[in-house]
């Protein structure tokens, strides 16, 4: 028979587990309530047209950033774990791990101060390009860590068998390891897309810097504009809640794609 203290701990642990489960649902419920009953309501026609344009920008920047960032992250994992042994491999591993120490706000500063002025021409495309680079840098370290985990989970016997049959490291990677980790790789791409569409701090800095420097800022990502409004929000704005719900749905859709294609181990 368990002591009262042990029963108390088990009950408390279960209650807190329910709190952890309900917290994300509470966030969704708050946003739905605010979207339906917010004090400030935007003009529906203008709101839908502006949200449509922002959604296009969000999906385009998110998809491109995720595609480049995740591909570079996974490619680097293949390089450090399979192809580039020795000091170079270790140095690049340190660089990839080191990138994870740069928070999104620093990446945004980099995009606004270094990348944006270097891109040729003061056009919307320059801003788009700088924002894509920021998202790519934000997604890359996590994709690297997940890619390295996926490669580490492959049984060594598979590599040994292929090597014994005379396959080079490149051939083992292309014809043995990639097919073996296909499902996790799809999951990493979906995870990257989830993070990329929700990336706000870095992208908003690039857009604000472009607006300050006189670039023609015609598009904003939804998450970026949400953060951009942070300083001026004073009331429960239904439009902001609806925009946040769209970001949430985009992130959940990307996650759903990842889960259907095999998914990845949670937590990293």
């Amino acid at each position, binding site marked *: 028979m368990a*002591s009262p203290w*042990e029963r108390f*701990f*088990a009950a*408390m*642990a*279960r209650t*807190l*587990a329910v709190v*952890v*489960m309900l*917290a994300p649902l509470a*966030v969704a419920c708050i946003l739905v309530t*605010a979207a339906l009953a917010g004090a400030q309501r935007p003009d529906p026609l203008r709101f839908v047209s502006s949200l449509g344009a922002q959604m296009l920008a969000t999906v385009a920047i998110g998809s491109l950033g995720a595609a480049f960032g995740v591909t*570079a992250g996974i490619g*680097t994992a*293949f*390089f*450090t774990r399979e*192809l*580039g042994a020795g000091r*170079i491999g270790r*140095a690049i591993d340190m*660089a*990839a791990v*080191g990138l*994870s*120490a*740069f*928070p999104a*706000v620093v990446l*945004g*500063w*980099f995009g*606004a*101060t*270094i990348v944006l002025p270097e891109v040729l021409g003061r056009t919307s495309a320059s801003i788009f390009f700088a924002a894509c680079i920021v998202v790519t*840098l934000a997604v*890359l370290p996590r994709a690297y860590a997940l890619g390295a985990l996926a490669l580490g989970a492959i049984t060594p016997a598979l590599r040994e068998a292929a090597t014994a049959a005379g396959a080079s490291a*490149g*051939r083992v*990677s*292309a014809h043995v390891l990639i097919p073996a980790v296909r499902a996790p790789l799809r999951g990493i791409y979906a995870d990257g897309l989830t993070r990329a569409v*929700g990336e706000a*701090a870095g992208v908003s*800095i690039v857009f*604000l*810097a472009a607006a*300050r*420097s006189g670039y023609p800022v015609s598009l904003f990502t939804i998450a970026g504009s949400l*953060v951009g409004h*942070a*300083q001026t929000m*004073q*009331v*429960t704005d239904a439009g902001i809640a609806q925009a*946040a719900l769209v970001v*949430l749905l985009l*992130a959940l859709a990307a996650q759903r794609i990842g889960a259907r294609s095999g*998914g990845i181990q949670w937590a990293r």
Partner: protein
Amino acid sequence: MGTVTSAPLDTFRPRDAIVTALAYASGAATAAAFVALATAVVALGWADLRYAFSGPVQLGTGLTYSLLVVAVALPVTMAIGIPAAACASEPIVGTQIRVALLASLRWSLGLPPVVIGVAAFFVAMTFVRSAGIGAGIAALIVLNLSNATARFAQAYASVPAAAREAAAAAGASPVLIFFSIVQRRAVWAVSAATLTIAAQMIGETSAVLAASGARSAQAPLPLQIWQYASDAGMAPSEASSCIVLVLSVAACLSLARVCRGRHRSSMAS
């Protein structure tokens, strides 16, 4: 009579070359990105680092607020996350809730921080009529609850099942096994998870910004950087703040790496 044909080409070779080239290019691009970022931050910010503590960015105040936010948010997150992780990793403690918790963790880890920040802002505006750093702390806690639970559960799951089974065979209760075997053996892994979450909290901008706004200079360091980062004239002082922020995050991540190494060696021995 059949015709003589040439031997089939090695169809493997082009794919080998593409994968190898992509891996090398990715490695080079990652190294270049790291060098470019580090060089830009250091080259622009190193000279101003001394003056940044007394300049308009108020680096000292920002750092103090960052530490204050982490000092409040991290213990609360741990206090909820550790028992919840016990539910996730120990079937007898978690019972039926365990399956639902694991399923919930799978989808709740990808919630965009800005969305959580906006929700915290709305709650603060509805109940307190003003949003401040308190709303930011609440957003940080909600953002990291799933993440912390998942990391702690992974740490506990890394303890070999044989240790649990031996204790159970000797008559120990599940809660006793959790505290005397699992917690003790996973102490380095739990430390690594805690430091990683601390690093995430120090660098987090979107959730805290959306929840609290950045209306005054009395804000954590990432919010102060965000406020002035789009101003090209302040690039050097911003770079100094970036150096301090990156070093703070890197220190936590490095310690986490050391703890993870210790855990691995303690599990191997």
